């Protein structure tokens, strides 16, 4: 196989591969989507350009050469359109009228090309020359007459350089390191090879340097520039996505910690009971032992109580530790009843301090749910504490939070937390889930947003509605039943 065939088909193959690759990757943003499409277009055009060039170089006759030169205009047109639109979409800059003007002129060239013999460039070709190129004899135009409209495609190429330079300049003026980088890479990466191509094409067409037509080279350079830019974009959005995920995780944790902060004093109270009891019992035992005849029965019951209170304190600490621990969602089959009982135990002291009655109604025979205990407790805590805050802002006598669990549709369990607070207006009911939306003077507005993220991570749904009975809000969320759980 000849070197020319080898190099040109390799170029074509790599262009095709890139086109395929970027078509597969697709895009995440609209701008990248369209730029991606244009990239694929240019890559496909490059393949055809390469084929036509090899055809010209290996042409056995004047007619064959003329035909290849004529068909050469088709991928050229596609490539030009692709390059122009890429610059327009990717840089989001450049004068549209200039762009469409160039495309229109190229279309005229393309149409005329097929209306005249043998092609747009020459009125007639009398002979072919053979020159040494990459150690091979290749056909170039010999004696031929150029068409007088020859200046038109050259002009379009020059206008393309102007268009690209202008677009890059516009972007540069908008400022920012990113914009500067993009303007520089795309501006130079397109303008220089296109300008070079004009020079090369002119030497080839005019028969000055006795070189074959080398459009593939230009196209390969612009493809490389486009691929470089697009892959940078892919990497960037990938990194951005990672950052968003990281941020969301941080927020989930922050939400948990702020809920903890609210509960800290209540938990301290809970811990103080058993610890205080242990201390007093131990002191009482000491005094017993100092007596001449210690009451052994009393000492035995003191020790039993100390043991009991120690376990109690340990449980409080376990609950707290489970809350603080940073974990990803790990679903396990859980009993809804147990889950509710444990969570309500955590809010018990808080409810007591705020004089809120917590009622819990669990439908009998519920299946186990597939859920992460800590995360779902977090959601329940959020909703219960929110409810308490809402109730606190009213003078209502009926300070009550109702927690319900019942079977939902399609193998789910539905949980609901209703309060007798003031509620919100119907039109705000969806907005309360927006991050940083809050009705509390010192709220961060993260609780519900985080809760919704958690529930959705479980494959459930969290929504709010006006509590028709008592006028407050009712939050409902679903959790999938554990696989294999009895309904």
């Amino acid at each position, binding site marked *: 196989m000849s070197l020319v065939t080898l190099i040109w088909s390799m170029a074509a193959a790599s262009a095709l591969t890139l086109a395929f690759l970027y078509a597969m990757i697709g895009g995440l943003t609209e701008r990248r989507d369209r730029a991606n499409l244009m990239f694929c277009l240019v890559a496909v055009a490059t393949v055809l350009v390469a084929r036509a060039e090899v055809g010209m170089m290996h042409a056995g006759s004047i007619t064959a050469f003329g035909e290849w030169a004529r068909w050469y205009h088709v991928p050229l047109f596609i490539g030009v359109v692709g390059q122009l639109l890429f610059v327009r979409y990717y840089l989001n800059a450049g004068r549209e009228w200039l762009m469409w003007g160039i495309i229109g002129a190229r279309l005229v060239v393309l149409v005329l090309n097929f209306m005249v013999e043998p092609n747009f460039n020459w009125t007639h070709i009398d002979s072919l020359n053979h020159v040494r190129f990459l150690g091979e004899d290749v056909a170039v135009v010999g004696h031929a007459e150029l068409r007088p409209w020859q200046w038109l495609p050259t002009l379009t190429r020059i206008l393309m350089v102007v268009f690209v330079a202008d677009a890059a300049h516009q972007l540069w003026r908008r400022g920012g390191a990113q914009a500067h980088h993009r303007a520089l890479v795309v501006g130079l990466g397109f303008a220089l090879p296109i300008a070079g191509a004009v020079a090369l094409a002119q030497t080839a067409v005019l028969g000055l340097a006795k070189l074959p037509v080398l459009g593939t080279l230009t196209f390969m350079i612009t493809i490389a520039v486009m691929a470089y830019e697009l892959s940078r974009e892919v990497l960037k959005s990938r990194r951005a996505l990672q950052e968003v995920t990281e941020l969301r995780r941080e927020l989930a944790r922050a939400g948990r910690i702020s809920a903890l902060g609210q509960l800290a004093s209540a938990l301290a109270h809970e*811990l103080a*009971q*058993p*610890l*205080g009891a242990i201390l*007093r019992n131990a*002191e009482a035992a000491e*005094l017993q032992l100092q007596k001449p005849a210690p009451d052994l029965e009393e000492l035995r019951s003191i020790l039993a109580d100390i043991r009991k209170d120690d376990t109690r304190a340990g449980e409080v600490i376990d609950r707290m530790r489970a809350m603080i621990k940073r974990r990803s969602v790990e679903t396990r089959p859980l009993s809804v009843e147990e889950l509710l009982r444990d969570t309500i135990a955590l809010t018990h002291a808080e409810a007591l301090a705020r004089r809120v009655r917590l009622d819990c109604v669990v439908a009998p025979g519920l299946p186990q749910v597939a859920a992460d205990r800590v995360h779902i407790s977090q959601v329940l805590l959020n909703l219960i504490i929110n409810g308490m805050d809402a109730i606190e802002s009213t003078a209502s006598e009926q300070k009550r939070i109702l927690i319900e669990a019942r079977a939902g549709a399609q193998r789910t369990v539905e949980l609901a937390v209703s309060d007798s607070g003031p509620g919100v207006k119907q039109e705000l009911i969806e907005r309360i889930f927006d991050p940083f939306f809050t009705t509390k003077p010192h709220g961060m507005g993260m609780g519900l947003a985080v809760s919704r993220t958690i529930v959705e991570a479980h494959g459930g749904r969290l929504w709010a509605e006006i509590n028709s009975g008592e006028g407050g809000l009712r939050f409902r969320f679903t959790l999938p039943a554990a696989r294999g759980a009895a309904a």
Partner: protein
Amino acid sequence: MSRGVVHIVDDDESFRTSLRRLLAALDFEVFTYACGTELLAAAREVRGCVLTDLRMPGLSGLELQGACARAGLELPFVFLTGAADVPSAVSAMHQGAVDFLEKGAPREALVAALERALERARAAHAAQEQRAQLRERLATLTERERTVLTLVVRGRMNKQIAGELGIHERTVKLHRTAITHKLRVRSVAELTLLVHEADQLLRRA
């Protein structure tokens, strides 16, 4: 001999029991209640001091203190709390709490606080006794004797009193003898002091 009566109010049974054990072993006379309402219902004439949890279902510690004051129970309060929070402490002190302790406070601090509270209870009790006695003694004076007493305390001479009341000076002297006898005092100075004290105590009652 008991060091005094302590009424423990706490909703946590385990804590209540441990406290009862300790204080009983320290020779206090202890009564326990699961909530404030129980204490209020227990007795009209509660003696000693109250040792109560701050946060409880039903009546909170502070509310119990207010309810006792309204019911005329002069009980010094010592508060226990899981985690001392400043606003409640300030509020409790304003209402006349003797002390405000964390549940895990050292035994010595707890006992000292109870001693102070009981001391105050005893003082209040003694003052009450004294007041009752004085009221009793003053009640034995006749209307006329009381008028004479008022004038004597104001520093009037017998002659002036006689003139003001339109009676004989001898009669005034007789009244004064009856007064000093009934109130068990020996001199005018002592009499003045007593009347002044009575005035103070009775005004506060």
